[in-house]
């Protein structure tokens, strides 16, 4: 049953990813990296379960490592995708500066932190 899911997902992934143009291969890489940080799901259970302290600690490090990828991965993907723009919009002069401040886009990924922390307390 699980192998079935795996093969199906790999097939879907293959179909979807062959259509990604070389133009976006770097964002693709950072995106899949962020998505595969879903192993956070497994780490969370370990860190929060009442097994023994070794499991908790291993889970804790795993949660940290995986959430680095979730937060960093989605942010950097967004930052890259924001830069890709079409030429006909307006050419030349008006090159908008790329500050790291990023007001609107950071809203989505930043929401991640308070959300899981919230039900915790």
């Amino acid at each position, binding site marked *: 049953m699980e192998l079935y899911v795996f093969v199906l997902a790999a097939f879907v992934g293959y179909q979807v990813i062959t259509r990604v143009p*070389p133009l976006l291969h770097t*964002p693709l890489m950072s995106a899949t990296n962020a998505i595969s940080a879903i192993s956070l799901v497994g780490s969370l259970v370990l860190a929060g379960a009442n097994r023994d302290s070794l499991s908790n600690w291993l889970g804790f490090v795993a949660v940290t490592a995986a959430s680095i990828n979730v937060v960093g991965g989605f942010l950097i993907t967004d930052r890259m995708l924001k830069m890709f723009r079409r030429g006909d919009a307006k050419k030349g002069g008006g090159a908008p500066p790329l500050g790291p401040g990023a007001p609107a886009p950071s809203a989505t990924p930043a929401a991640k932190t308070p959300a899981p922390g919230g039900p915790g307390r």
Partner: protein
Amino acid sequence: MNRELFIQAIYLASSILFILGLKSLSHPDKARLGMQQAALGMVLAIVGTLFHHEIVRYDFISVGLILGTVIGYPLGMFVPMTAMPQRIAISHMFGALAATLVGIAEYHGYAGHVPRPTMAALGFEVLFGALTVTGSFMAFGKLQEFITGRPVTYRGQNAVNISLFGVAIVLFVWLVVRPENPVVFFAMIGLALLLGVFMVLPIGGADMPVVVSLLNSYAGLASAATGFAIGNNVLIICGALDGASGFLLSIIMSKAMNRSFGNVLFGAFGAPPPASAAAQAKDLTVRSISPEDAALQLGYANQVVIVPGYGMAVAQAQHVVRELASLLEAKGVTVKYAIHPVAGRMPGHMNVLLAEANVPYDKLYDMEQINPEFEHTDMALVIGANDVVNPAARSDPSSPIYGMPILDVDKAKSVIVLKRSMNPGFAGIENQLFYEPRTSMLFGDAKSSLTRLVGEVKGL
């Protein structure tokens, strides 16, 4: 039971959002929104998991999440685009580390009584996970240049690597048969860690796109194996997506270099170049050109094709490139960019850099699109690219890169190559292009050469 159903429904929704997110990457206009949906999917999955019946304490979870966010935020927001390859490499390490640690904790939790199918999944998970942890760290070190970017080779290297891998597989099989021995388990992890180091050592800078893609795939497979081990479908799905993506990218990269996987991993490119090619080059002379003349030729061209390579990234010259292009366009010159699939140190590296410099993406052309155009191109401007424009790949069967698809810049009416010096590029392969009568060399750091070109073009 209801709670379990609820979590599964959330996981299903996340999986769909992830797939839609990846699908949106087929077009740059929709990509951003799609990836934001994928991020939403991730938030859903995390929140859903917190309802898991086994979770009773939140101290480790919240500190871990906060710490991860604090470290992840600068990694996402402040890393410069030129450092993207090493940034991606290190994130593979984090992903694989999480998978490996979960694997270790699960094994520990079973206290030796692991059912065989679970043991197979766990073994696979820690084997690939541990290998990816050190492998990615090595790749990171090479890209960040605190480990030498040149291939490190020694006699019998392949034999050592293959036998290490063989022993790891034997231990894996042993574990599946007799799961209760933790010594075997940890020996396998240690071996996998070593293997990761040894695997990346012989790989040189220009092969990094393949390796980074391959490690991407391994990190995904380790996640998928985690899913098998703990019976979690969303993990299996995401791991499979990541694994498929990395695998596909490594195939594309290998093809772009006309090399097989095995060749990249085991055929270290460090061998000295054939003496004939080097000697042959000695008799030839190069023509160097002054920035004034180069600017003149550029300014009066109809079509200019810019060919960026890793040298542009090293010199951080992408912004000056765009400035030059804008000036030329203002003079009525058509400017296009030719991107070779393995230009730079990771798939799509050049595209991201040029996009950062505000080059519109419809001016970035893939190899297949641009190659027929070189014949009608007055001037090809090669900036810090070498092997990807070496005509020997087409004509010289004795060349180590023979057969690799290249950008046909030598078909342009004239070529200007911006290069630091006449040192041959990676692996010391001589480039015939530099000696062609229609080629001129503009020596110096790419950025300062371009800045001078900009000044000259302004004065035209």
